[in-house]
């Protein structure tokens, strides 16, 4: 048992990588001292802090199969995320975690995976994708459907354009809401793009994350495609302060996103009040 | 003087029937708690019977009018002196459109501390109506007399705004602003001013330790109507969420200054505070200074311009 669960370990920022042209999303690569390292599962989160500014909950975007360093992809929306963006390699960062349930990687074994993400929503799923890539033989075929507002806003470009498409039994389908001169790929919103692709629900689990409005329509699209509620997993985000199920604000009904989530099946979601 | 409930009902019904207002805001009895009256809104003439006007209507209504009229609702407000001034505060602050409120003035003989009456004299609540006898409330028909000296709410003990001013209509009963229980609005202020400085600090520090900073005083206050409060800001974080002497000082100091020259002396902050923090002693200090320093007469009556929103070339210069 951690003697003081709210006291973070101090890690070091190794790299700060802008993901988008506008710089509103950056990926921090962080190294923790050996004694503070933790094991985690894809989809789990950690509380990052800049001492003097505050904390915020960010999903771990690197896979547990690459444990030496952790990666966090952060969109700048407020005070703390802005401070995280200003960190430079070599600087200190507070980390505590891992929090949440993560994706049920054991249950997913042997199944086909349909990953549907929008914008920064790919971050938690990227952890899962790379986990599967590293243990390719344990999982069925994986299809990644990813969209962003513009080609510039697509995150993890190295992976989505180069490394993932080269992995056996991995397909990457990209779309943007609005193209530019260089974009030759599909243009359109993720949910309709998904319906066009019409993946079969047979033996497949769909995992989705993105802006709330996208999630809403992706869930509808999946239903239209014949996915059953228990075949659909989504990961949610609410305001959190403690991460340990004690501060009482990230609940949806009786479930806390920080300990019972952030991953919920559509079946669970339908039993929860629509207050998120 | 009687608490003319039927007359109040009739007026409210008439306002609704004549379509002068869309709804009337007043008070209703809490069916579970005999001593409690809570703010209540009536939309139809047939339901005016739900309204009540008796010595237990404690909650101030002004702050509620703000949110209620936001969508353009035309609201009739049963307004005592304190409520009327509060509504006018909001009107002058451009939070309420004048044409959206119809102030139905009720001269107020003071309100009782309901819980206390319930504990000491529960049979008082069997009354069918109430009469005001100056120093007592008298229940009709039981004849039970409640001495005000014992049962007046704190805010009403210190009240000097009993008469509903600047209303569209005042229920015609006698009454006035004079409150025999409060001869001098500034008594407590003067007492504190006379203390040596270290004792003054100790006085406030004792209260800082008790203040929970629940913000009830701010939320209930008709003068605290900013869209977002500087004390809630994170950048800059004027009021850190940590609770200590310094942050409590900043909270109460800032709150007092932000209502300086704007406080209508309704006493709602005092009523809302669960630990009895003497917020009135801060507010009235500001009022007293408005009078002493800038010659503002009746600083609790909202005006088009505020004392701290203007200046005089011959303002005192006592910084030496």
């Amino acid at each position, binding site marked *: 048992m951690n003697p003081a669960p709210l006291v973070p370990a101090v890690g070091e920022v190794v790299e700060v990588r802008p993901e988008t042209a506008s710089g509103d999303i950056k990926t921090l690569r962080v190294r923790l001292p050996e004694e503070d390292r933790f094991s985690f599962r894809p989809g789990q989160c950690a509380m990052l802090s800049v001492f003097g500014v505050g904390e915020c909950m960010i999903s771990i975007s690197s896979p547990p199969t690459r444990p030496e360093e952790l990666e966090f992809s952060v969109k700048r929306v407020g005070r703390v995320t802005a401070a995280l963006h200003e960190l430079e390699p070599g600087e200190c960062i507070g980390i505590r975690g891992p929090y949440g349930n993560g994706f049920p990687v054991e249950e997913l074994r042997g199944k086909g995976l349909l990953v549907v993400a929008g914008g920064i929503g790919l971050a938690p799923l990227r952890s899962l994708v790379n986990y599967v890539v590293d243990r390719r033989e344990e999982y069925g075929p994986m299809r990644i459907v990813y969209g962003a507002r513009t080609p510039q806003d697509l995150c993890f470009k190295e992976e989505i354009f180069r490394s993932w498409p080269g992995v056996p039994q991995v397909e990457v389908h990209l779309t943007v809401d609005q193209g530019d001169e260089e974009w030759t790929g599909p243009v359109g919103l993720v949910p309709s793009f998904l319906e066009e692709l019409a993946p079969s629900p047979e033996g497949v689990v769909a995992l989705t994350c993105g802006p709330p409005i996208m999630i809403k329509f992706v869930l509808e699209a999946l239903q239209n495609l014949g996915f059953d509620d228990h075949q659909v997993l989504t990961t949610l985000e609410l305001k959190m302060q403690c991460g340990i199920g004690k501060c009482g604000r990230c609940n949806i009904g009786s479930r806390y996103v920080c300990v019972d989530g952030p991953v919920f099946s559509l079946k669970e979601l339908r039993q929860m009040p629509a207050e998120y | 003087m009687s608490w003319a409930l039927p007359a109040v009902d009739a007026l409210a019904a008439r306002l609704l029937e004549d379509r002068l207002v869309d709804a009337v805001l007043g008070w209703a009895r809490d069916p579970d708690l005999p001593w409690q009256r809570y703010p209540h809104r009536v939309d139809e003439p047939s339901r005016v019977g739900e309204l009540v006007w008796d010595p237990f209507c404690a909650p101030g209504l002004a702050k509620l009018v703000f949110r209620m009229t936001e969508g353009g609702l035309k609201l009739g407000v049963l307004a005592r002196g304190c409520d009327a001034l509060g509504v006018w505060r909001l009107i002058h602050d451009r939070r309420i459109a004048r044409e959206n409120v119809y102030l139905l003035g009720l001269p107020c003989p003071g309100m009782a501390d309901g819980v206390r009456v319930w504990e000491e004299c529960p049979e008082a609540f069997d009354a069918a109506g109430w009469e005001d006898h100056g120093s007592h409330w008298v229940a009709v028909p039981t004849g039970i007399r409640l001495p005000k000296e014992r049962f007046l709410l704190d805010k009403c003990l210190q009240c000097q705004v009993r008469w509903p001013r600047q209303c569209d209509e005042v229920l015609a009963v006698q009454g006035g602003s004079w409150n025999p229980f409060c001869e001098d609005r500034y008594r407590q202020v003067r007492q504190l001013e006379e203390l040596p400085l270290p004792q003054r*600090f100790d006085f406030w*520090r004792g209260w800082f330790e008790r203040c929970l900073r629940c913000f009830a005083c701010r939320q209930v206050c008709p003068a605290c109507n900013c869209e977002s409060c500087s004390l809630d800001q994170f950048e800059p974080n004027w009021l850190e969420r940590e609770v200590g002497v*310094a942050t409590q000082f*900043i909270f109460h100091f800032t709150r007092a*200054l932000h209502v300086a020259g704007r406080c209508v002396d309704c006493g709602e902050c005092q009523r809302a505070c669960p630990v009895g923090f003497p917020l009135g002693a801060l507010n009235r200090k500001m009022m007293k*200074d408005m009078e002493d*320093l800038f010659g503002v007469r009746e600083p609790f009556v909202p005006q088009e311009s505020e004392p701290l929103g203007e200046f005089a*070339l011959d303002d005192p210069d006592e910084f030496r």
Partner: protein
Amino acid sequence: MSVREGWRPKIVAFCCNWCSYAGADLAGTSRIPYPASVRIIRVPCSGRVNPVFVVRALQRGADGVLVAGCHPGDCHYSTGNLYARRRLLVTRRLLAYMGIEPERLRLCWVSASEGERFAKVIEEMTAVLEKLGPVQQLREEGPP
């Protein structure tokens, strides 16, 4: 708390950009000696000074706060200093009422040509604060 050996009062001075900041500058360039205990913060106008600045300064280590603006009639924004006077008068009285020595807050008028006056005000204020000692009321406890 006893006053530490060698303690010197710290003053935070909010100086209006148009008059007093230049006045303070003049004091410096004319090599008029005044206590080094003052920290100057330039503000566009004395009217910019929010009373909460005063308390915040006293909480965070200042022993006194000086607000310096243009003389009445000379305000760059014509009347900012006069609003400031009203506001700070009330602030000062409220500080005293809540148990903080009112002498810790001072408002003065210093024009761009009054380097000497600026130095004198700082000197006077330093002397007053030396008598009062450090602010005890609002200091917070540090880490154990």
